[in-house]
């Protein structure tokens, strides 16, 4: 499997949709024949990003829209997760390990650290007017390629 493929999902900012999003992206990425570990990493990253959009971007409101896009280009998967929520004021602070603006919700401030660790490239664009958009990439060396 190689070449181009893409998908786009938009859904309500409800917590039930966190598992829907990660399972959908995992199914899409399966075309690249990833290892179980790589698939777990992608699921975790999608879960972190979508959860952030719901609890931080939309403050738990269920009337927001979260959009997840995935693109396959050769052996690389590109992911983007966007919301039109409140945006992030201080990106450097937000990306620090263990920083959370919502300790009272038992957040641990690990989401960004996990996403950066599990992906090869990671970038955030955020503004008060336009919400937050994450763009990330990961190379998937397929199991088949490892044997050739």
């Amino acid at each position, binding site marked *: 499997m190689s070449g181009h493929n893409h998908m786009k999902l938009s859904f309500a900012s409800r917590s039930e949709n*966190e598992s829907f999003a990660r399972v959908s992206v995992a199914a899409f990425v399966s075309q690249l024949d990833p290892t179980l570990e790589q698939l777990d990493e992608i699921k975790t990253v999608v879960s*972190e990003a979508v959860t952030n959009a719901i609890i931080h971007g939309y403050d738990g409101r269920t009337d927001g829209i979260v959009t997840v896009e995935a693109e396959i280009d050769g052996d690389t998967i590109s992911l983007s997760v966007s919301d039109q929520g409140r945006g992030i004021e201080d990106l450097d602070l937000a990306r620090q390990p263990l920083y959370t603006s919502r300790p009272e919700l*038992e957040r*641990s401030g690990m989401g960004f650290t*996990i996403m950066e660790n599990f992906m090869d490239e990671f970038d955030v664009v955020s503004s008060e007017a336009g919400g937050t958009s994450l763009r990330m990439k990961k190379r998937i060396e397929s199991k088949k390629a490892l044997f050739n």
Partner: protein
Amino acid sequence: MKMSLQVELEQQRNVLIVRLRGELDHHTADIVRYKMEDAILRGRCDHVVLSLKDLQFMDSSGLGVILGRYKLIKGRGGKMVVCDTQPSVKRLFELSGLFKILSFYDSERSAVAGLEVVS
């Protein structure tokens, strides 16, 4: 509505065993919080064993709820230990530094045995 996480509680003397089965994320973290909180505050347990053999998925929401219960137990003078973690779940414990705070065991039996030595 069907939940993608099941919480099973078992009391063995002063130890509460909490078995999590399925997927622990933001959506399912509340169930774990309420069930554990209820059992800890009502029951006569001093310590908790988190048994994670059948936990197939966890993200930072899981770390948060586990850290929260750890603080509760610790504040009451008890210990919380973890056993039987899947590799992907273990990796998150390592990344977050929780690996250094909690003790990890290979099985429920060794976890309970480890606790009874300290109590």
